[in-house]
C-alpha cells in the first residue's frame, strides 16, 4: 500500500509540473518571442515587499533596471521606480491547450516588464521562454517515448511470441540499433533533411528521429517478458481451449508487459527530453525564435555569455524537478508493479 501512495504522490507532482507547462500561456507573463530591444541581457528582477525606505507593500514589486551609462549590458537598480506586480492581468494573446484564445495572465505589470529570470540577447523574457520551451521539450520527450514503446512493444512481442528465425532476425536488428553511434547518426540524418524546416515539421522530425532510435532496449525487455509469459500455465490452458495467436497476445500476454512498459516510459521520457535538448543545443532542433530548453541553453555556447550572464544557465535547472519526478515515479512503479522481483533480487545484489 505504501508504494501505491508513493506512485500517486509522484504522479501528483508530475501532474502539477506539467500543468504549469501546458498552461504556459497563463503562467508566462509575456509572449516568448517578443523582443524588447532596449533591454538585452537584463538580469533577473527580484520581487520585494519592503521598499528602500522600509515601507511594507502588500503587493510584491520589483525595482526597475536602468542601463548604466556607456554600457550595453550592465544594469543598475533604480530604487525610486517601483514596478508593482499585477495579478490576473490581460496581456499578450495566447491559446490555452492550443485552441482556447485568451489574454489573461497570472501576473504582469503596467509599463515596465517584470522579468523574473532576466532576458536574453534580444530582450526576450527568459521566464516566459522557459515555460513555453517546456511545452516543446516535454512534448517531444513524451511523444518520442510513446513511439519508442509502441515500436518496442510490437517488435518485442513478435520476436518473443513467434520465436525461431523471426526472433533471431528481429533481435539482430535490435542489436545493430544498440551498437550505432546515435548522436552522429542524428547529425547526419538532420543534415540530409531540407534546409529550412518550419517549427512544426522540425518538431515532428525530432520526435520521429528520437522515437525511432531507442526502440531496441524496450523491445528486448518486452521479448523477455513475452517469452516467459507464453509458457505460463494459464496461457497454455487458453491455447489448449483453442485460442488463436491474436487473442492470446491481446488477452494474456501483452497485459503481462504493462509493468515493464510503464517503468520504461517513466525512464525514457526524461531521457528523450534530454535528447531533444541535445539536438536543439546543437542547432538541429526547433528553429529560433521558437523556444525549447535546448535552444535556451544553446546561448551558452558563446564564451562571452558563459562568463557574463549567469541567469542564462537557469533553464538547465528547470529540468531538474521534472527529471526527479519521472525517476521517482519510475522507481515507485517498479516497486509496486514487480514487488516479488525486487524482493528476490535486492538481498542478493546487496550481498
Amino acid at each position, binding site marked *: 500500500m505504501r508504494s501505491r501512495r508513493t506512485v500517486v504522490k509522484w504522479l501528483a507532482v508530475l501532474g502539477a509540473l506539467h500543468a504549469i507547462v501546458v498552461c504556459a500561456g497563463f503562467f508566462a507573463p509575456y509572449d516568448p518571442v517578443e*523582443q524588447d530591444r532596449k533591454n538585452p541581457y537584463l538580469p533577473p528582477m527580484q520581487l520585494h515587499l519592503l521598499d528602500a525606505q522600509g515601507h511594507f507593500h502588500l503587493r510584491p514589486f520589483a525595482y526597475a533596471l536602468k542601463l548604466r551609462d556607456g554600457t*550595453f549590458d550592465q544594469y543598475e537598480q533604480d530604487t525610486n521606480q517601483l514596478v508593482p506586480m499585477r495579478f490576473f492581468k490581460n496581456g499578450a494573446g495566447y491559446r490555452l491547450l492550443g485552441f482556447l484564445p485568451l489574454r489573461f495572465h497570472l501576473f504582469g505589470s503596467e509599463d515596465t516588464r517584470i522579468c523574473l529570470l532576466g532576458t536574453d540577447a534580444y530582450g526576450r523574457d527568459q521566464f516566459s521562454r522557459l515555460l513555453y520551451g517546456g511545452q516543446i521539450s516535454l512534448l517531444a520527450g513524451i511523444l518520442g517515448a510513446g513511439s519508442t514503446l509502441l515500436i518496442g512493444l510490437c517488435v518485442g512481442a513478435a520476436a518473443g511470441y513467434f520465436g525461431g528465425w523471426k526472433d533471431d532476425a528481429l533481435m539482430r536488428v535490435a542489436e545493430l540499433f544498440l551498437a550505432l553511434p546515435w548522436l552522429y547518426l542524428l547529425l547526419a540524418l538532420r543534415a540530409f533533411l531540407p534546409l*529550412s524546416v518550419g517549427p512544426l515539421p522540425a518538431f515532428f522530425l525530432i520526435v520521429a528521429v528520437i522515437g525511432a532510435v531507442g526502440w531496441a532496449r524496450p523491445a528486448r525487455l518486452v521479448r523477455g517478458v513475452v517469452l516467459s509469459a507464453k509458457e505460463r500455465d494459464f496461457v497454455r490452458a487458453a491455447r489448449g481451449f483453442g485460442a488463436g495467436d491474436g487473442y492470446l497476445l491481446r488477452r494474456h500476454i501483452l497485459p503481462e508487459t504493462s509493468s515493464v512498459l510503464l517503468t520504461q516510459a517513466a525512464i525514457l521520457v526524461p531521457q528523450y527530453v534530454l535528447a531533444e535538448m541535445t539536438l536543439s543545443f546543437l542547432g538541429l532542433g526547433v528553429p529560433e*525564435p521558437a523556444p525549447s530548453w535546448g535552444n535556451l541553453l544553446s546561448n551558452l555556447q*558563446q*564564451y*562571452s555569455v558563459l562568463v557574463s550572464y549567469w541567469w542564462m544557465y537557469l533553464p538547465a535547472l528547470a529540468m531538474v524537478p521534472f527529471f526527479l519526478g519521472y525517476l521517482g515515479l519510475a522507481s515507485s512503479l517498479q516497486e509496486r508493479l514487480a514487488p516479488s522481483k525486487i524482493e528476490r533480487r535486492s538481498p542478493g545484489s546487496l550481498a
Partner: protein
Amino acid sequence: MKNLNARRLCCWILIGSFALLFLSIGQAANAPQRKAAKEELLVLPGEVGKPGGRLVVALRGEPKTLNPLIAADARSREVIGVMQADLVHINRATQLTEPALAKSWKISPDGLQYTVVLRQGLKFSDGLPLDADDVLFTFRVYLDENVHAPQRDLLIVGGKPITVRKLDTRTVVFQLSKTYGVAERIFDGLAILPRHLLEKPYQEGKLGQIGTLATAANQWAGLGPFRWKEYVAGQRLVLERNPYYWKTDVKGNRLPNVQELVFLFVPNADAQVLKFQSGETDAIASLGAENFSVLSREQRGYTLTDAGPGLEYNFLFFNLNDLGGKASPELTRKQKWFREVKFRQAVSAAVDREAIVRLVYQGRGAPLWGLVAPGNRRWGNDKLAHTPRSLEQARTLLKQAGFSWSTGPDAEATLMDSEGKPVEFSILTSSSNADRAKMAALIQDDLKQLGMRVQVVPLEFRSLLDRITQTKEYEACVMGIASLDADPKRRHPSLESIAGASRYSVGSGDRPPDGRANDGAHARAAQATL
C-alpha cells in the same frame, strides 16, 4: 541590405614590446631612404627594437596552401601576407599606397603606362636575387587563364589584361589599355613569385602542387618578413625571420626583430579568446564585441587598444542569380519577389540597423546604408542621405509592388504576393559566427512585422560558401566581408563572385544617391539593397 555595420573591433591586444615591433613591420614608412651601399633597403622610422623573441598568434584553421596562386581562403591569405611581398603596398593606417619592392614608379602623361623601378639588391628568402624577370614571370602566371589564379580578374582593365615588359633588370613597364584610377592599388597584395622555384612546375602544369603544406620548407621562398620553418599538422605553422628581408630600422639593422612567428590553429573565436587569456597566444586581432567586453573587464597582463572602425561589413543579400532552368520552381517563384526593387527597398526600410549595432556590437559598430564602411576614410561619406527605418514606408512600398496582407486565425497578418502565395523565405548564416546569427534573428523579427515568414538557417561555413558560390541554391544570406582595400573597386574577390560585375566605377562616388547597392540589373546576385 544590410548593412551592418561594423566597426571592426580590431583590437590589437599586445603583449610585450616585441609584439609592437612586429606590428611596426607592417606599418609603414614615410619616404624610403637610400642606403649608401648597393642595397636599397626600406628604412622604417621609429623606435629601434631588440632582436629576438617569438610571437604566437591564433589562426582560425590550417591554411590550405602557401601558394598565392591558389589561395582563396582568408587563413591562407593571412599566412601568405607575412611570407610574401608586393611591388606597391597600401598602408592600412593611411589607406594610401607606398613603395614596397618597387623603389619608385612613374605614370606616363596619358595614364596608361606605369614604369616601375625595383629596389637594388632584393633577395628571396632562400637568398637568390630578384630581378625584372621574376616580376615578368609573376604577371605571366597570374594572367595565364589555365592557372585560374584568383588575382587574374584584378589585372584585367577595360576588358584587356595588363601587359608587362622589361626595360632593364630593374625596370618593368606595365601597359594598360584604358586609364584606371586605382591602377597602382592593384599591385597591393600581388606577391612577386620566385621564378627559380616555379618556372619548371609552371611549364609542366603542376603549379597547384607546389607551395602546399606538403612541400619541403626549403622548396618555397618569398619576399616577406618571415619564411617557412616548420608545420605540424593540425597544430601549428612556425615561420622564422627572413634574413634577407628588405626593411631596416633607422640604425640599419635588418628587420624583422622577431625570430619566430607561430600560427596556432584555433578553430573558433571563443577558443581564441581563451587561449589569449591563458597566455598561449600573444595577440588577438578582430574580436567580437561581446568578447571585447569580456576581455576589457579584467585586463591581466595585456592592454586593449580600440583601433577604430575597420573596413569590414555585414550585409543581407538575396539570390538574384539567373539560374535558367536549373532553379527549382520554388526558388524561381521567390526570385520574382527578390527582383522587385520595391520589395528589397521595403526589406531595407524594415531592418532596424540601430538595434543590430546595439545588440550585436554593443554599440561598437555603425549602421550602413551602402558598401562603404566608416573606417574607409577615403570613400566614406556619412553625409549621404539615407532613408530612415520605417515600417509604414515598407508597407507602402510592398503595397505598390502588388503585395497584400491576409489576416490569419491568430490575427497575425501574413504578407501575400500578387498570386496569393504567402511570402516565406530562408536566410542562411554561418553557424560558427554568433554575431551574424544574431543579426539574422533580428532581421527575422523585423520582417515578421511586415508579415514575412523568415526562417534562419545556420549552416557550416564551408557548405554555406558552397551554396552561395557553387550550387546557388539559397534564397537570402547574411554574410560579412572584410575588405582589404579602402577602394570599393578593389573589393574582396568573394564579393565579386557574389555580386558579379561591380557597379562602381572607378574614382568617382558612383553610388545610387540613397546608397543602395543595387538594382540588380547588372549584378548577377546583387546585394539587396542594403
